[in-house]
């Protein structure tokens, strides 16, 4: 119920910001700007899809942006080595899946906290990206793909298809039910015959593969493969997922909420840039929204507890 309420709040906020921007910000409400701003959220949206699953299962993956960087570096390196791009792309996806598999193995087999593991692989994967590609930028990528990636319909179509798929998977299948149960109470899920470790492992693998997919979009969109592509995106992804109403403790959240939060952050960013607010102040707004998204329900709970009789159950 709380989730529903939170989604509606995000939706109201989104509509409000759009109306404000359309009326008050020059150059916001036209087709090319709107498609540009949506296009600009593609990578975050893609990674947020799998991150939602991971966080609902009460884990976290801080290494996604580094995986994206590593995949970009592999792409640039292989392209320089003369491989065909049609061969490179599946290799990149495999690299991403492998990165996710390493996270997944460390978390599920050794029982390590995913926070510590993915801070480690965050550095490791980005470092490997630098080792592979150094500080060069590979820019002579095939025009067919770079133009495809800048045509809004293609990346947005990808997000739409995968988004609907992920939403159905999370909210209407047994796997989705299992993910929620794992996040809410891992032990009870295990006692119910749910293969907790196996599911978590594959969530990390999917997260890695998705980061690699995002790296392809990123590389082609900017027509540049660099080792430092997407630095810092992991925090933007986590921020979007949390703002979308997913509980950091797992077990709660919805994909539509997350997608709306991604768009909300994109619209705010775009509108502030158009309104000539310093780009950097966006950080402040992002941080504030993030804290507010968790603070609001907590303060609400504190408030209720103070003014109604205690409802604690021992």
């Amino acid at each position, binding site marked *: 119920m709380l989730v529903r309420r939170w989604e509606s709040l995000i939706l109201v906020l989104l509509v409000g910001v759009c109306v404000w921007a359309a009326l008050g910000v020059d150059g916001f409400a036209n087709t090319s700007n709107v498609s540009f701003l949506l296009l600009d959220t593609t990578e975050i949206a893609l990674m947020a899809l799998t991150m939602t699953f991971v966080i609902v299962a009460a884990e976290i993956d*801080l290494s996604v942006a580094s995986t994206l960087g590593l995949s970009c570096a592999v792409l640039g390196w292989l392209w320089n080595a003369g491989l065909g791009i049609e061969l490179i792309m599946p290799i990149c996806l495999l690299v991403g899946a492998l990165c996710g598999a390493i996270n997944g193995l460390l978390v599920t087999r050794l029982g390590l906290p995913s926070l510590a*593991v993915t801070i480690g692989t965050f*550095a*490791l994967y*980005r470092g490997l990206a630098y080792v592979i590609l150094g500080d060069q930028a590979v820019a002579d990528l095939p025009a067919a793909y770079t133009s495809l990636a800048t045509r809004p319909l293609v990346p947005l179509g990808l997000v739409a298809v995968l988004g609907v798929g992920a939403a159905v998977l999370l909210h209407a299948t047994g796997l989705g039910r299992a993910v929620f149960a794992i996040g809410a109470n891992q032990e009870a899920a295990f006692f119910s015959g749910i293969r907790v470790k196996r599911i978590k492992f594959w969530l990390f693998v999917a997260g890695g593969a998705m980061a690699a997919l995002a790296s392809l979009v990123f590389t082609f969109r900017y027509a540049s493969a660099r080792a430092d592509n997407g630095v810092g995106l992991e925090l933007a992804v986590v921020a979007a997922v949390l703002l979308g109403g997913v509980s950091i403790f797992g077990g709660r959240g919805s994909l539509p909420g997350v997608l709306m939060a991604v768009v909300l952050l994109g619209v705010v960013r775009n509108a502030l840039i158009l309104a000539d607010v310093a780009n*950097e102040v966006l950080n402040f707004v*992002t941080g504030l929204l993030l804290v507010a998204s968790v603070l609001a329900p907590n303060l609400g709970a504190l408030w209720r507890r103070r003014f109604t009789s205690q409802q604690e159950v021992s």
Partner: protein
Amino acid sequence: MTALSEATPPGHGGRRLFDRVTRVRELGIVLALAALFGVTGAVNPTFLSFGSIRDILLNSAIVAMLAVGQTLVIVTRNVDLSISSIVGLTGFGGALVLADSPAVPIAVVIAGCVALGVVCGAINGLLVGVAKVPALVATLGTLYAFRGIDYAWAGGRQVNAADMPESFLSLGSRSVLGLPLLALVALIVLLAVGWMLRNLRAGRELYAIGSNPDAAVLAGIQVRRRIMTAFMANGALAGLAGVMWAARFGTVDATVATGKELDVIAAVVVGGVAIFGGSGTVFGAALGALLLTGITSALAVLRVDALAQTAINGALLIAAIVLDRVLALRVAAALRRRRYRDAR
């Protein structure tokens, strides 16, 4: 089973085992440091020269200080991702005041930076301790927010060494008794915090909170206040680190220390502080910082591409937690068997 059952009094064996493991843990870092210096020194003896070691100490001073502060927070089963932004904010703020208002005494600037750090830490502490926002989320938010304030304040400006008084910059390079001043400051902070964690009630209570939060409440510990204190102390150290940064590097803008938070956490975890609280020492954390910085210097001396350093840090962090985990599992299994034998 019976063949193995010696007349060990229950507990004593477990004690020894536990001790051995924790000692192995800190010894491991010392050994790694020794190996690092030994191998690098053998390949290139200049690495062991006075000047080189002095540089390593100087370079690790800031990270070590941040690691000490972060330990205070992690020991309570929390984390502070926002320190890099606090360093950025205080470092830039301090430099700006020094450049624009030369009349303000340096000591006041330093105190001001520490105070600003305390305020930032207090915001984190309020969010985590009082409003019960998970530390990861709260400090991720303030990481953005503090950096945003930093940017807004800077407005694209950069403060150069030439803008700051020479007496301030010399703090970053001066030596006292052969030790770089900054390293000395870090050492004093380390010893002081280490002493407090061991010998003051407040210090022990931080460990208690991280070790078993529910029992901490039952023991009558003021959990909220202690968590506030940990975040504020961490903020203060980050503020101090900010001034040190400005003095050391001379050129500062709004991007100072971006991304440092994960380096610091890596140092802390490599140093044997459990990411879920309750155990670990600031000395381990400082050793971790020294090790990671030492590796950077060694790579330069060994002419290994400096770009490999990030990867090595990551690999080291993972190796450290995997090792801890494997050791912990071994100990748990050994204790299970031993207790069973004792019961026979």
